């Protein structure tokens, strides 16, 4: 069947448009990075590196030490993962391998609800209800400490961890389970010794994606961690206030003069965040691509 030139022209136009849109996503990522560089790089020229990576963050006195902020982010991200990893993997195993159907039907939408709760609502909940409990349980002078932040963050990364880990468990061939059971192992032994190890790479991806979410989380963290820019070193660091990179940007960007040193430094923190999350995502994506190439044999 022949097509009129009009049809052919319309076809060409629409296909080109779709192609442009397809490429634009890459454009956005590059654009975001370029903008961070454009506004953040001057910081490296305006103050020396010793100051920028120093231990004291007092912007009004020209002290822009980002080390406490970086370590603050690292501390609560790692603590959050330490809480969320066992919980999330156990919940995923429960949902996929153990739960009766009715429990699965309840659990899955519940976890979607958790994923849908806005971060600022969880932050508010953490401030008004979790922080007082933390204060009384651990006898800290304030409940707005790193631990409260880690707790809230753990629950925020749980939906990601559970759903990705569940997919990984789901991808383990049924043959493996049958083989385990046929050897006389109990269901528990099969899960623990065969299924979970077989899904390991997917579980690692799950944890990395959860970590990426946790390190970039802003509002909840800003509301519950107390925002004190001190070095989170020492054994009691978890029960002291901390300040993260994200919270610093969110709290201070609204008040700085555009083009000032402080403004550029906040963008420089944005660069650090972008690079960290980019690397985490790259690692997570590469395990996903590798898995796809190896096909059915994981």
């Amino acid at each position, binding site marked *: 069947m022949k097509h009129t030139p009009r049809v052919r022209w319309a076809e060409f136009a629409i296909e080109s448009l779709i192609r442009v849109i397809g490429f634009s996503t890459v454009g956005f990522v590059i654009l975001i990075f370029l903008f961070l560089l454009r506004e953040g790089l001057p910081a490296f020229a305006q103050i020396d590196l010793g100051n920028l990576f120093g231990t004291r963050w007092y912007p009004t006195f020209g002290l822009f030490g980002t080390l406490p902020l970086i370590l603050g982010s690292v501390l609560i991200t790692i603590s959050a993962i330490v809480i969320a990893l066992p919980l999330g993997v156990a919940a995923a195993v429960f949902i996929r391998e153990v739960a009766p159907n009715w429990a699965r039907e309840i659990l899955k939408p519940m976890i979607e609800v958790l994923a849908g709760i*806005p971060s600022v609502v969880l932050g508010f909940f953490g*401030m008004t209800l979790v922080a007082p409990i933390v204060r009384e349980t651990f006898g800290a002078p304030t409940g707005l400490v790193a631990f409260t932040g880690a707790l809230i963050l753990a629950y925020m990364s749980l939906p990601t961890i559970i759903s990705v880990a569940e997919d990984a468990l789901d991808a383990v061939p049924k043959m493996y389970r049958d083989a385990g059971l046929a050897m006389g192992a109990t269901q528990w032994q099969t899960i623990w010794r065969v299924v979970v190890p077989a899904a390991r790479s997917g579980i690692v991806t799950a944890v990395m994606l959860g970590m990426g979410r946790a390190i970039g989380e802003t509002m909840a963290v800003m509301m519950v961690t107390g925002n004190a820019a001190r070095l989170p070193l020492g054994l009691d660091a978890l029960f002291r206030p901390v300040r993260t990179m994200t919270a610093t940007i969110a709290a201070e960007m609204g008040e700085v003069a555009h083009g000032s040193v402080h403004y550029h430094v906040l963008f420089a923190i944005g660069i650090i965040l972008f690079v960290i*999350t980019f690397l985490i995502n790259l690692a997570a994506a590469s395990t996903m691509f590798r898995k796809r190439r190896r096909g059915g044999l994981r």
Partner: protein
Amino acid sequence: MRNRFVAQRVGFALLTLAALAVVIPILAVVAVIVIRGAAAINWEFLTAMPRDGMRAGGIFPAIVGTVVLTLGTAIVAIPLGVGGAIYLSEYARDTWVTRAIRLAIINLAGIPSVVYGLFGLGLFVLLLGFGTSIVAGSLTLSIMTLPVIISTAEEALRAVPTEFRTVSASLGGTRWQAIRHIVLPQALPGIITGVILGLLRAAGETAPILFTVAAFYLPRLPRSPLDQTMALPYHLYVVSTQVPGMPQKIQFGTALVLLGLVLSLNVVATMIRSYFRRRRQW
């Protein structure tokens, strides 16, 4: 050999406990906010302007602001997101270019929301000169929602069987005609679900609108797309941290309205998805 089964019992009990430890706090958050927030909700709270430095009156401009921002986001994000998904599922071959696009999408999904805020501030507010405005906020939010919309829409398009396209081609239809008249209509429910889920995220986000649109206290409705506006998530942040002596009633009421808006749209999306999944004939 009985202790193997004892181990299994203990193991399963631990797994059950873990699942409960995930679910119970979710129930607690929702229950507490619904119960304590319900006391604040009345007609005046939903439809009046805030008064007395936000300590009294209603949250009407914040509700309107959130709706306007979400609509603005939809206008930009839907064509871009659906177009991108069509490209990836119907046109793209597995080359390094499409790998780069996929990687970019994964990355967009992982960029911290506050970094989107910085980007929006740098590009839309300052360089393009939109100022802190609904336009700048919507554009920022729509780039943030793109990955969600693209990946769910792509999944919906891929779920349409290849035969549909083959049959259309065998009747002499062009590729675009097949997409426009057969593939898109079939994938529409899935695409709508993805769009709602993406917009939900935008409606609940605070960090990207902090420096691009949100007004601290603006007891009137926005007048133009270049105007600032209040928005529910930022308003909740403000009333719970920035204003001393704020009645808890207003805080919980605002939290409930935001949570209710987001979760009810979530339910709508889930319903669309399960309804059409059951009705699907292929």
